[in-house]
């Protein structure tokens, strides 16, 4: 993650960031909360299902959301992906460019791709290492990506790899308006 130079000295003051942790499993949610508190986070809201998460999000205080894919009310068809979709696309969303971490045991490639295509900023596969979680959290906060709207998608730019050997035309660059 290091860019070298000044970036090596950058720090994240987590006390300045408000979090929402959406996790139906009480213990797993508590563990994320404890990790965030150890990082000195002061404001951490928790939710277990779509409705309570959206209610908290509507209040407009949340800076970063960490959500599980499978929620308490999945039998009703609402998952963490629905919350991501709401944040990115709903007219009532207070921050459509909010950093969102998807943290789930649905860790196979097809799920990672679906989460990416829904607009998730970072994906954390359970079981996770604390360092893996922190690395993705820090990237989402300190290294935000540009956003893109293309057809039905609105979310972080999904292109991560830069091919140093690519010598073709930069077709997308010509269209950038940011």
């Amino acid at each position, binding site marked *: 993650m290091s860019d070298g130079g000044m970036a090596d000295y950058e720090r*994240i003051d987590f006390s300045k960031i408000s979090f929402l942790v959406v996790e139906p499993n009480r*213990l797993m949610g508590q563990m994320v909360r404890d990790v965030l508190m150890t990082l000195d986070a002061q404001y951490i809201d928790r939710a277990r299902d779509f409705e309570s998460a959206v209610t908290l999000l509507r209040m407009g205080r949340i800076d970063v959301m960490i959500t599980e894919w499978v929620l308490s009310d999945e039998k009703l068809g609402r998952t963490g992906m629905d919350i991501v979709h709401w944040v990115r696309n709903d007219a009532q969303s207070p921050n459509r460019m909010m950093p969102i971490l998807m943290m789930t045991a649905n860790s196979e490639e097809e799920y990672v791709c679906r989460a990416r295509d829904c607009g998730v900023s970072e994906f954390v596969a359970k*079981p996770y290492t604390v360092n893996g979680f922190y690395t993705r959290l820090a990237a989402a906060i300190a290294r935000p990506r540009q*956003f*893109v709207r293309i057809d039905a998608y609105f979310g972080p730019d999904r292109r991560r790899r830069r091919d140093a050997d690519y010598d073709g035309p930069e077709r997308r660059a010509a269209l950038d308006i940011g």
Partner: protein
Amino acid sequence: MAPRKHKPVFTPPPQDLRRRAVNFTKGFRLKLAPEELRKLEEVVERASDALSQDVAGKLRLLRAALEDVAAADTRADTAMRALRTLSLEIKGMGGMFKYPLLTAFAKSLNDFVKTIDQPTPIQLDIIAAQIDALYVVLARQIQGDGGRTERELLQALRQATAKYKNPARDTAD
């Protein structure tokens, strides 16, 4: 590849949060120092006993759900959902507290039950065998990836699930 209907519209990276929280004096470096990482790892370690007890409770629920599915009554649909949800949760928890074998067996079980709506008798036997394996790992406190016996059992269960899963449902929900 289908042609795109619209040109992409880019918006620069949002900087509000970065401006507010990233600095050069206070907080945690982007790459954690060893002592900082150690502190965070201790948080997870402290939760190990509680996680272990939670998984034990989920295993009891798995057994109960399997009985309901086997009874094939009105509770069967709910019980199949419970099998999927519980196995997924254990898959995500095992490796968190030094039981990666729990994660491996739970993944095998979850991959299997998510392909099934109404299990056949042999599929029920395979589900029961996987729940038994989860019990053994937890009861005997087999940390790490176990030994040769555990690896062979996992391999055998994977072969059984591959043979008897419902290929028509072998996709993500």
